[in-house]
């Protein structure tokens, strides 16, 4: 059996090998035959190409004999194919008169009939070959037959026909643009332009006529041709195209406007800008960059401030800079010059340069990436401030916007203290707290309000001096509104500090442990609560969520003069104790001490205590728990479902 199979497969492989060998040989044979035919036909073709009626008589005779011979060749289809191929190859390498003779020979030999027959084939590649052959050999009137393939659904045939029609004669492009309903790829457009370039003495038509086409690709191609042939006379038509529904056409038209410097189109571009998409907006900004002037700055600034798209906004800024160089300066990733230590010799060079440039800067009114309005900061020179009365320095702050008032006051303080002195140390007497108070008193009412507003906006960022100033205002300000606002700032700051302390580890208190009463979060809140209602609410909250930590504080409050508070405190203590007991029971105690504590909290009589050993024994024996009512009667709270194994202490204890 195995031998039979081996024999079978051996035979099959042998057949396969023979088949491959045969097909390879036959192909080689065909190739060899073609090469032989080519070598046979080469001198014949050369003779035909270079024959002249003025040649000697012997050569004339030879020419006649060759003509007869070649007629015989032409009866056979394979020879015709070889002849066509030879002529097609040769026409690529020769030029001038020889090429013209070659075309003539092709027609004389009637080879074009084969090419025309190929157009009737149903196979796309045969049709394509036929079109290519007819167009390469310049067969007259073939264009009429090729035209019908311009809108062929087969892409290769269509493209070949387009190239053929356009390249055949100068009017070919007109016919093509008029009749094509299909898309024209970028690559095809370039090929067509190249084909037009090969037409000798080509005079292009006015391509703006096709800007009205319904085929968007024709419009795009026409725009490309207008640019290629530099046809500037189509300004109105091109400008109108920026209103086109198609964004691709809009962008191409804008590019044309840029290339031809149609400055008058800028008005229309600014009108279409708001209703355009990103790509068109960028193209519009490109146009403004190339053609814009100072008059367009406000339009561009408006875009830079209102546009939400980052790319467009950045382009608008770049456009502004292109029209008015250096008007928009970098705004992100820069070092704050105000914080640079003037006496530090290791200040990076870049920072020093920045400082040097600061006085020359113009105010920048453009938004940054994050839409934060950038307003020029007139950076106060430390040396200038040092030599001046701080009060005067504050007065010199020009029309400070509220959000920057705090920065200015900071700058004055910080720049006055070279070497970043610790605020706890006594600083040189450049600006002291009384001086700030004096400066504050010299401020007008409006400036005071701005300063307080600035402090309100930066409550969490106040320095000690600013804090002192706010305290001063809260105490001494005659204007009750300002005084109240200063007081509110202080209160907010204290509350924020209290909140921050919750997250601060204990070691930040310099090792000093707080009194037990202050271990609760409610301690600070309670003392900051200004009215009775707030305190009662806090006590209720303590009752609801409090634990052992709240008890010392609550015990302190039991002596509160207000009866309502005392009642609430008692209720809170009871509730917390119950909660703690419930927690301990639901999470069984692990140590005897904790068990003791539990019993103490429950204030149970000694004889109600269950010995641990007995409890474990009950657990092992598996005595079922008593009803929850009984348990509640003992503990005065609900036993949770999770309390397992359950056991009846009282029942078990009394047997």
């Amino acid at each position, binding site marked *: 059996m195995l031998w039979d199979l081996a024999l079978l497969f051996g035979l099959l492989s042998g057949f396969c090998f023979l088949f491959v060998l045969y097909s390879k040989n036959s192909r080689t044979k065909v190739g060899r035959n073609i090469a032989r035919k080519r070598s046979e036909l080469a001198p014949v073709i050369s003779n035909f190409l*270079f024959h002249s009626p003025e040649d000697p008589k012997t050569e004339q005779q030879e020419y006649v004999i060759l003509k007869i011979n070649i007629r015989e060749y032409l009866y056979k289809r394979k020879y015709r194919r070889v002849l066509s191929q030879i002529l097609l190859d040769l026409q690529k390498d*020769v030029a001038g008169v020889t090429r013209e003779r070659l075309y003539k020979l092709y027609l004389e030999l009637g080879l074009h009939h084969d090419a025309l027959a190929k157009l009737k084939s149903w196979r796309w590649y045969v049709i394509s070959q036929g079109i290519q052959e007819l167009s390469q050999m310049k067969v007259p009137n073939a264009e009429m037959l090729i035209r019908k393939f311009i809108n062929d659904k087969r892409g290769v045939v269509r493209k070949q026909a387009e190239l053929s029609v356009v390249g055949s004669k100068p009017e070919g492009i007109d016919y093509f643009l008029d009749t094509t309903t299909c898309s024209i790829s970028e690559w095809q457009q370039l090929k067509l332009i190249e084909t037009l370039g090969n037409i000798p003495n080509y005079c292009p038509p006015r391509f703006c006529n096709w800007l009205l086409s319904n085929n968007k690709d024709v419009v795009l191609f026409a725009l490309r041709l207008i640019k290629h042939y530099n046809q500037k006379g189509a300004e109105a038509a091109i400008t109108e195209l920026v209103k086109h529904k198609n964004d691709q056409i809009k962008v191409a038209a804008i590019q044309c406007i840029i290339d031809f410097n149609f400055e008058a189109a800028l008005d229309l571009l600014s009108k279409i800008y708001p209703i355009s998409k990103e790509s068109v907006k960028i193209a519009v900004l490109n146009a403004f960059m190339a053609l814009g002037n100072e008059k367009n700055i406000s339009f561009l600034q408006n875009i830079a401030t209102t546009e939400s798209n980052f790319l467009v906004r950045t382009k608008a800024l770049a456009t502004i800079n292109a029209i008015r160089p250096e008007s928009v300066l970098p705004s992100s990733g820069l070092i704050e010059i105000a914080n640079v230590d003037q006496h530090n010799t290791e200040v990076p060079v870049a920072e020093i340069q920045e400082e040097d440039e600061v006085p020359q800067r113009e105010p920048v009114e453009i938004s940054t990436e994050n839409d934060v309005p950038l307003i020029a900061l007139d950076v106060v020179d430390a040396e200038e401030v040092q030599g001046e009365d701080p009060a005067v320095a504050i007065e010199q702050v020009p029309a400070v916007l509220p959000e920057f008032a705090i920065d200015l006051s900071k700058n004055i303080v910080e720049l006055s203290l070279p070497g970043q002195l610790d605020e706890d140390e006594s600083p040189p007497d450049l600006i002291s707290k009384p001086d700030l108070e004096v400066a504050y008193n010299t401020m007008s009412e409006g400036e005071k309000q701005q300063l307080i507003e600035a402090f309100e906006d930066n409550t969490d960022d106040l320095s000690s001096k600013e804090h002192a100033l706010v305290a001063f205002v809260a105490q001494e300000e005659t204007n009750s509104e300002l005084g109240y606002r200063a007081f509110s700032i202080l209160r907010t700051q204290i509350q924020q500090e209290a909140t921050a302390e919750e997250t601060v580890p204990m070691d930040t208190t310099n090792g000093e442990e707080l009194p037990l009463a202050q271990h609760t979060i409610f301690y600070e809140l309670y003392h900051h609560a200004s009215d009775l209602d707030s305190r009662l609410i806090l006590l209720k909250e303590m009752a609801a969520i409090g634990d052992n930590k709240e008890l010392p504080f609550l015990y302190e409050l039991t002596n509160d003069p207000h009866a309502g508070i005392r009642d609430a405190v008692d209720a809170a203590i009871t509730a917390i104790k119950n909660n703690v007991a419930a927690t301990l029971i639901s999470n069984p105690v692990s140590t005897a001490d904790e068990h003791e504590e539990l019993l103490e909290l429950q204030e149970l009589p000694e004889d109600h205590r269950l010995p641990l050993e007995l409890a474990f024994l009950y657990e092992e024996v598996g005595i079922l728990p008593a009803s929850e009512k009984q348990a509640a009667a003992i503990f005065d709270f609900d036993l949770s479902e999770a309390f397992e194994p359950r056991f009846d202490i009282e029942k078990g204890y009394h047997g």
Partner: protein
Amino acid sequence: MAERVLLLAEDDQMLASLLQYRLEREGYKVIMTYDGRAVKESLQSALPDLIVCDIMMPYLSGIELVDFVRNELNSDIPIILISSASNDENIISAFEMGANDFVAKPMSPSELLVRISREIKRHYCS
């Protein structure tokens, strides 16, 4: 005037045949070669009066052939290069190597004839 011998090195047999026919009609004796190795062998046996050579050839490019003739054979016979690859680098390096002229494809055989006769006159009749 003695019959001038031209060495025509072109790998496209049809074009070579066409040029050979045209050159022979003009009275030149043409030695045909279709690749670089054949050109080398032919040159080592006898030097022609002028070489017409395609740049893109099997085994040996036209530029290498110019280098071979100028530096190994130490000959100053006129060399005309033909190529469809008419990029600047090829042309410049060919001239740097010592080529006398360059014709780009598609070429007119008549133009090639004029260039050949000019080079021959320049080299042998001056």
